[in-house]
């Protein structure tokens, strides 16, 4: 690839999809996270990340491929910023959507040339009410780039 600039993918819409958190899955997740499920039917808040990531319609490897980056080259989750607009509930099928906000090349003292992938995902209820907005960044070390 031309290493001068990363691929121009800002604004690319992700396919999106659906995600349903069953009560049993939430229970198993809570146990693995050393906690207990909420008795009121709300799911663990970390599902804002899990459900949007799993329901965005493309795998992480596929998302990285859009950036012309091989997942075997060691991508790192950099940050995650979540706005909770409504509680996340079990046994509701949510609609997930998203878009790439930016892919920016930078220089890191520790990692050399890196690209920062920034993308936004949303989770909506079946009636179209926004439940979650989340923006994640991944750090992509460009070992071959100069």
């Amino acid at each position: 690839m031309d290493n001068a600039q990363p691929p121009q993918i800002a604004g690319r819409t992700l396919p999106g999809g659906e995600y349903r958190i069953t009560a049993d899955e939430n229970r198993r997740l809570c146990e693995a996270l050393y906690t207990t499920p909420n008795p009121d039917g709300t799911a663990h808040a970390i599902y804002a990340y899990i459900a949007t990531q799993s329901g965005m319609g493309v795998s992480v490897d596929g998302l990285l491929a859009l950036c012309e980056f091989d997942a075997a080259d060691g991508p790192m989750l950099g940050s995650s910023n979540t706005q909770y607009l409504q509680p996340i509930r079990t046994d509701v099928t949510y609609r997930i959507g998203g878009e790439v906000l930016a892919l920016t090349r930078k220089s890191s003292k520790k990692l050399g040339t890196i690209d920062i992938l920034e993308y936004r995902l949303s989770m909506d209820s079946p009636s179209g009410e926004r439940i979650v907005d989340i923006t994640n960044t991944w750090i992509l070390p460009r070992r071959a780039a100069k």
Partner: protein
Amino acid sequence: MHVGDLLPVWRIDSVDPANMRELAGVLRDPNPIHLDAAAVQRLGLGDRVINQGPANLAYIVNMLSAALPGAVLLQLDARFLANVLGADAVEAGGRVVSVEADAAGTRIGCEIWLNVADRGAAVAGGAMLLLASPRPRVNP
């Protein structure tokens, strides 16, 4: 609740690789770095399995839920700084940085973190929670 208050810490004495395997199933994440120490070694990343990043953030959510029961999480911002490894001892904590009352209740802003014993911060960031005002009594 006052600015500067420390939230009670939430600890795991030893992050269990068995829990990583269970999480891998829920997360549909087959990455061998969470499952197989030999795979971690082959990649030059050490000799212990690596915990899933969302799990590290979830420990902070657990801390907030325990420290502020009944509060609603409005915003959660996190930077992932380092890995948590199998058998690590971790401690989630936080500090109140703002307290503001409005019609909906009291909004509590917190600095948050997850520290690994002997290695320092794995996650750092901030959170905003809402403690709802009690509903006014309605006279019969």
